[in-house]
């Protein structure tokens, strides 16, 4: 049975520290666009931690929600791409094929989560920052859409290893950069086709829900709700 990659994000664990955000930059050769471009809305964060403030002082509550590509099974971004640059793989990933992208940016519009980012300019790593670039990940040029890949380079590498060693992939052996960095382990990644994998069990959790499920995009990331403490919780 092929893999079906999925993720669970536990809002009860997430502290909004943004380790995942920087880890994603470091892993995936995401350029920093600089202050002028950031001010013009060109900052690229495949992974972002949304924060929503509720209430007023002093009864303020804050919600953190890491948002990344939801790798939807019925992804609107895939349908609208005229060149199949955005397409679905048999492992359930929303692939973004950079070399096939002509930059209509239609996928970015169709995505309800706004997790797609566009290379408005050709990125530059000022030397020697370029030496840090991950050789396993493409460096995208101007005019191309990009987004979270679930660290497909890690998936590929892990599959190559297990194939060479002739064994099955162990649950938890493979982690995207965000999950690996997350201090509180709020992000869990794994194979949804394995009912016993941690992510599958979390996906069945009563705390779980999908973000913007009503759009019908069938996202593959389960968000586990933040709980409110009451006396009985701690017993």
């Amino acid at each position, binding site marked *: 049975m092929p893999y079906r990659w999925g993720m669970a994000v536990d809002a009860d664990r997430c502290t909004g520290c943004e380790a995942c955000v920087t880890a994603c930059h470091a892993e995936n*050769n995401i350029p920093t*666009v*600089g202050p*002028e*471009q950031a001010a*013009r809305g060109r900052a690229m964060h495949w992974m972002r931690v949304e924060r929503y403030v509720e209430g007023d002082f002093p009864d303020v509550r804050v919600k953190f929600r890491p948002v990344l590509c939801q790798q939807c099974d019925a992804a609107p971004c895939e349908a609208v791409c005229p060149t*199949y640059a955005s*397409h679905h*793989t*048999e492992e359930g*990933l929303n*692939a973004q*094929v*950079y*070399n*096939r992208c002509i930059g209509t940016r239609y996928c970015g519009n169709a995505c309800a989560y706004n997790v797609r980012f566009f290379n408005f*300019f*050709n*990125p*530059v*790593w*000022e*030397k020697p920052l*370029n030496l840090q*670039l991950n050789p*396993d*990940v*493409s*460096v*995208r*040029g*101007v*005019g*191309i859409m990009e987004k979270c*890949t679930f660290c*497909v*380079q890690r998936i*590929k590498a892990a599959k*190559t290893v297990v*194939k*060479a060693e002739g064994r099955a992939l162990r649950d938890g052996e493979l982690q995207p950069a965000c999950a690996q960095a997350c201090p509180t382990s709020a992000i869990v990644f794994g194979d949804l086709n394995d009912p016993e994998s941690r992510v599958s069990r979390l996906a069945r959790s009563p705390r779980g829900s999908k973000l913007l499920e009503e759009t019908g995009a069938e996202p593959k990331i389960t968000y586990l709700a933040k709980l409110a403490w009451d006396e009985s919780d701690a017993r």
Partner: protein
Amino acid sequence: MPPSRSSLAARLILPLAFVVLAATMACGVANSGGLAGVQERASGVSRWGTPAVFTPAHASAGAAIRAFFGLRAEARQPIDFSHRLHLDMGAACTDCHAGVEQGPVAGLPSVSTCLICHSQIATDRPTIQHITALAEQGLDLQWQRVYGWPREAHVRFEHAPHGRAGVDCATCHGNLAEQTVAVRAVDMDMAFCVNCHTARQASNDCLTCHY
């Protein structure tokens, strides 16, 4: 004689289409989408706020056009290294291209690799003496890549899995036993890869190679 009806189309639509196409191509090739992550800082900020940290993908329009059509110069090697000679002597590919079986990149050997044998063998040849002299200065040979894809093709090829799948080196690199300095013997376009993948029932998903 008045022209025929069919030439109406030829006279109006085709030139029109051609003009539009040519205009787009002409402007388009000026900036074929490559990366130039390593370009130096452009000086100054343009009137429209193009920041200095970004530069066009190509240094010149010529470079853009060459990239668009996939033209690149033939590799010129620093010495006339003979693959045939070494293979005849019983060397294996992996003796020098050590990464082939272990990882994605085969690797180009450094002079240290050469000197593993040539500190003893054929030390009287001028080329070997040149190499030895280089090594003594701590310098390496400037090998140039023979194969490879334009960066904007975003191809991620791994040697080791192909080797494990039983793909012979010669399938992609030609018979090096017949070559002195390696030349591009196989045109590695996408059809070449796809055909082989199809024949061997390997995945042809875009993500297999492009990510």
